[in-house]
């Protein structure tokens, strides 16, 4: 009886998705086969010209590599930070657990512009990191931590961190404290327990979080724009630029679809991997 009703319950969500996601996606798809005139005017057509331009331009592949590299590094850094935090939140029985969890995901609520001023005070030439390094005598001239790849990588890792913590917490389902205690009682040191029990059991969560972090990084354009100082070119910023500065919708659409395919391929891969690991 209950199982028969589930599809009914899913209808509003499906309709909403159809309206806010599927329909615009189809529109995007259609636009990618229009042409762009010399002065930027969009010409209704059904041609592959934009696709040829896109795929023939070596810059497209440069952007692809940039996007993949940025996503992999930012996700890896974020994972290293998110994992211990999530593990702590998952396990702690302190009464401040709720508060700590809220603090961990609070950055989600901060707007991009506020964030950049935050990073300026931390990573800027006169920022906390440079001041500390100078005070310790490690450097004499400020390190360039902002308005370049370094800044974008750090900023992006931070911005995906809350999502990854949430994904890890959601994925920690099988991580039972008793299993670790069992390992300890059987003679495994804390480190061995982590390697043989905790880590393998949290692998599905890690894959889930990494997949999410990767997709979020691939599609992020605010952080690369705000912290990249115009030096960081990735697919997302280029799509944004084509659409909102050049008004070149066909190119923006084609590039968006290209990116979408990349991301879907990756997601498919990671979900297969995750299911394998969950067995």
């Amino acid at each position, binding site marked *: 009886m209950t199982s028969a009703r589930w599809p009914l319950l899913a209808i509003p969500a499906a309709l909403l998705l159809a309206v806010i996601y599927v329909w615009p996606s189809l529109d995007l798809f259609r636009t990618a086969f229009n042409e762009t005139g010399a002065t930027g005017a969009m010409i209704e057509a059904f041609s592959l010209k934009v696709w040829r331009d896109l795929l023939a331009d070596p810059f497209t592949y440069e952007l692809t590599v940039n996007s993949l590299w940025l996503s992999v590094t930012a996700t890896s850094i974020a994972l290293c930070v998110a994992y211990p935090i999530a593990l702590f939140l998952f396990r702690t029985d302190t009464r401040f657990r709720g508060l700590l969890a809220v603090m961990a995901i609070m950055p989600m609520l901060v707007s991009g512009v506020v964030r950049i001023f935050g990073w300026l005070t931390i990573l800027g030439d006169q920022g906390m990191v440079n001041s500390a390094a100078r005070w310790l005598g490690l450097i004499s001239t400020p390190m360039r931590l902002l308005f370049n790849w370094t800044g974008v990588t750090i900023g992006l890792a931070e911005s995906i961190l809350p999502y990854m913590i949430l994904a890890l917490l959601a994925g920690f389902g099988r991580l039972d404290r008793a299993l670790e*205690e069992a390992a*300890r*009682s*059987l*003679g495994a040191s804390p480190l*061995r327990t982590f390697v043989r*029990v905790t880590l*393998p059991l949290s692998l599905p969560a890690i894959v889930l979080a990494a997949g999410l972090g990767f997709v979020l990084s691939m599609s992020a354009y605010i952080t690369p724009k705000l912290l990249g100082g115009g030096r960081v070119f990735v697919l997302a910023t280029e799509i944004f630029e084509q659409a909102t500065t050049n008004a070149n919708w066909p190119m923006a659409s084609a590039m968006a679809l290209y990116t979408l395919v990349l991301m879907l391929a990756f997601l498919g891969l990671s979900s297969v991997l995750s299911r394998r690991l969950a067995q």
Partner: protein
Amino acid sequence: MAYLELTGLEKRYRDAVAVADVTLAVEKGESVALLGPSGCGKTTTLRMLAGLAAPDRGRIAVDGTDITDLPAHRRNMGYVFQSYALFPHMSVARNVTFGLEERGVAAKERAARAADALEMVRLKELGHRRPRELSGGQQQRVALARALVIRPSVLLLDESLSNLDAKLRQTMRREIRDLQRTLAITTLFVTHDQVEALAMCDRIAVMNHGRIEQVGTPADVYERPATRFVAGFVGSVNVLPATRDGQGGLAVWGMPIPGIASFAQGDADVFVRPQRMRLVAASENVAPDVPRLKGKVAQSIFIGDQVETVVSGEGGQVTVQSLSGAPTPQAGTEVQVVWKVEDTLIFSREAS
């Protein structure tokens, strides 16, 4: 000096005292049950033994060696968890060899010992399966094999049978007890089920509010409970509020209770187990040195091989348990309830 010694163990969680002052000595090869209601500190005591919780005070010694500050993985305790805690990402065989691998036992010996352990719990054929492919009882046995294969100094069982159905529980009780006897392994197990405790142990430690109230053989604890709590928790009992008669003796429902003239001052309750009580006709002449109550049968409840008869008197109700088969008096019949002097337990009321 006993094989396993717990001395003055204490554990607090924030403001709550989980274990107040636990001292217990267990001989080698002995099986001891920690029995008590939930929250009495019995599991915490077991966890401190395994090194999964650190005591705030007190010491733990095994075979004369103080292990109080030893980390869990160096204690060599075989712990069977309530949830079994089998590693879901490993096969049954791998679960069993886990402890051996961590001890650096050579592969060949590992395999042999794991096979023995699985055979011991009659699961020899299932080594390649994943834990989730096993039934509850099978998982329980794997957990047992995994704990035993490391040849632990002490086997610790934490409510290990509570997740099984009644029938299986009975079988497992016997199996575990047999294994324990065969291997002569020192065992401490936690339970809130008195039947389980009575059936599986050499001695029982009854715990309440973080303390051990009494330690003794099952018969000791049953026949000669040291405290009101033990009397009430182990087996069923009629609690009869007593009044003091003129001569310094005690009376229940207005009837003096013979044979206890030496009782101290203060209010007290008389405890008598339902099985030790007998119904006799109101007209029957009972010797004056036999304790007795008078009342009317309120109802009889048939519970299989036993019948419970509730008798109402002027001071309340008592339950009398007798073998079924004999004729039971009709409700409303005037009866007398009698028992032996030595079955009378008296606990002062202040002490509670």
